[in-house]
């Protein structure tokens, strides 16, 4: 049909993937046994690609809170936040989020994608300038398309390049709004937030930080990179998600700025969609309470990230630059990435296949994420399976594993 002609490149790429036997885009989990294990095609697999950083999806308190609220308030709100879709639980969760971050106000959105879409598109008006990191998540790019502002891309994690681009705006009216992420989802690297905050102060810009992959993971209190880098006072807006560390679905934004709540009637992705079901709100609230009251959860996922990253580095794999709980294994090309991913699934380990243009610099990646529920045994078993496939495909030397315990230089934590 001619209406689908525009997708001919995608059709070809999907055809090529289908020929390899297993299409990674249509993998189906027949059962999820725990945050660490699932079943694919009758095979038990270790889950190392779920962004379920604190492993709270099966936490008994979170599950119970959700179940109770499901029985009490029903399956859905069937309405928008500005109509019939704000229950006491939604308002209470916003208060809890604001308190967690020590900010004046919070807004809850129906997904993390919509949090970025709704926050950024509403904040950036016609004369304003959005300065976004080149490796920004698709939700940030889509937010830019929905906004009326001018969109400038700065080099990934390069505060100097950001400053240079802002200086090229000299004399132009409008607000400068910098958008960055805590941990980047593809390579697992963190933003140089202290340097970016300094640029923000020097140029009078506003700063938005998306902590989707760093909330609950970084910072002693789990507030993310802003806390870990000590720049919370410089960050005007924090955006985040309920679908990673909080184990459910939904998104949020928090801010100390007076006027923030005006976005409730200006942000279309907030207004024109149904609000989250009350059961989700209840489980998220329970999960946020866990993060607030148990700093060991964050420590555990960071330690697990370090163990996994170091284990793979020792085997000779080329990885992303920092040992965070997101660990990217670089593949020589797309074909090898698909083959590696398939063989690894047969070995009983699931991680994410990430191909261009979803990746930076046209990289083909296997993207892994560890969680706080992974045991040392899970991690070592995953490293062993990845090593077997890497050796079989000739990506790493067979002897590399012999240098057991050898010290190799690793990036600082």
């Amino acid at each position, binding site marked *: 049909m001619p209406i689908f002609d525009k997708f001919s490149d995608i059709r070809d790429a999907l055809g090529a993937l289908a020929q390899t036997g297993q299409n990674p885009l249509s993998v189906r989990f027949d059962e999820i046994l725990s945050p660490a294990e699932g079943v694919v095609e009758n095979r038990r697999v270790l889950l190392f690609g779920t962004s379920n950083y604190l492993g709270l999806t099966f936490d008994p308190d979170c599950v119970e809170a959700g179940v109770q609220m499901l029985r009490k308030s029903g399956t859905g709100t069937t309405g928008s936040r500005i109509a019939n879709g704000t229950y006491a639980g939604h308002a209470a969760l916003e208060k809890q989020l604001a308190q967690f971050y020590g900010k004046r106000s919070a807004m809850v959105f129906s997904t993390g994608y919509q949090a970025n879409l709704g926050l950024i598109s509403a904040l950036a008006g016609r004369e304003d300038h959005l300065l976004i990191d080149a490796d920004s998540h698709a939700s940030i790019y889509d937010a830019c398309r929905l906004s009326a502002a*001018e969109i*400038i*891309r700065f080099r990934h994690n390069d505060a100097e390049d950001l400053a240079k681009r802002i200086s*090229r705006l000299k004399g132009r009216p409008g607000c400068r709004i910098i958008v960055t992420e805590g941990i980047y989802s593809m390579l697992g690297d963190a933003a140089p937030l202290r340097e970016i905050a300094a640029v923000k102060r020097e140029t009078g810009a506003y700063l938005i930080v998306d902590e989707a992959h760093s909330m609950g993971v970084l910072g002693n209190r789990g507030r993310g990179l802003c806390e870990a880098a000590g720049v919370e006072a410089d960050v005007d807006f924090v955006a985040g998600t309920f679908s990673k560390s909080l184990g459910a679905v939904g998104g949020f934004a928090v801010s100390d700025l007076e006027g923030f709540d005006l976005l409730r009637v200006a942000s279309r992705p907030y207004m024109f969609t149904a609000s989250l079901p009350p059961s989700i709100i209840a489980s998220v609230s329970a999960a946020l309470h866990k993060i607030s009251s148990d700093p060991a959860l964050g420590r555990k996922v960071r330690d697990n990230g370090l163990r996994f990253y170091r284990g793979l580095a020792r085997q000779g794999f080329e990885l992303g630059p920092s040992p965070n709980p997101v660990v990217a294994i670089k593949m020589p090309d797309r074909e090898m990435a698909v083959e590696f991913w398939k063989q690894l699934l047969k070995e009983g380990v699931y991680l994410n296949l990430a191909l*261009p243009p979803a*990746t930076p*610099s*046209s990289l083909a990646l296997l993207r892994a994420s560890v969680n706080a529920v992974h045991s040392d045994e899970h991690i070592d078993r995953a490293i062993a399976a990845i090593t077997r496939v890497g050796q079989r495909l000739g990506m790493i030397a067979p002897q590399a594993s012999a240098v057991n315990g050898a010290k190799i230089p690793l990036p600082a934590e």
Partner: protein
Amino acid sequence: MAHKADEIAAQIIGALAAIAPASAPLSGNTKIARDLGLDSVAIMDFIMELEERFDILIPLDQIANVETIQDLSVTIEALMKDAA
């Protein structure tokens, strides 16, 4: 320094030659995405290189309607005039 659109086009073609397939046709009418097989990220990275080369900002919202090398050079010419 004033650049005319055709001079700018020549510079774009020079820069594209480094990243496009050797067999790709490069002229003002070349469609950057379709004819050169570049994905959206590769095109945005290329735009960033042009920003350095011409010392300007090329906002992403302004390249949404750019299809050919000629379109791009006209856009850059206008942006350079604004920045001057």
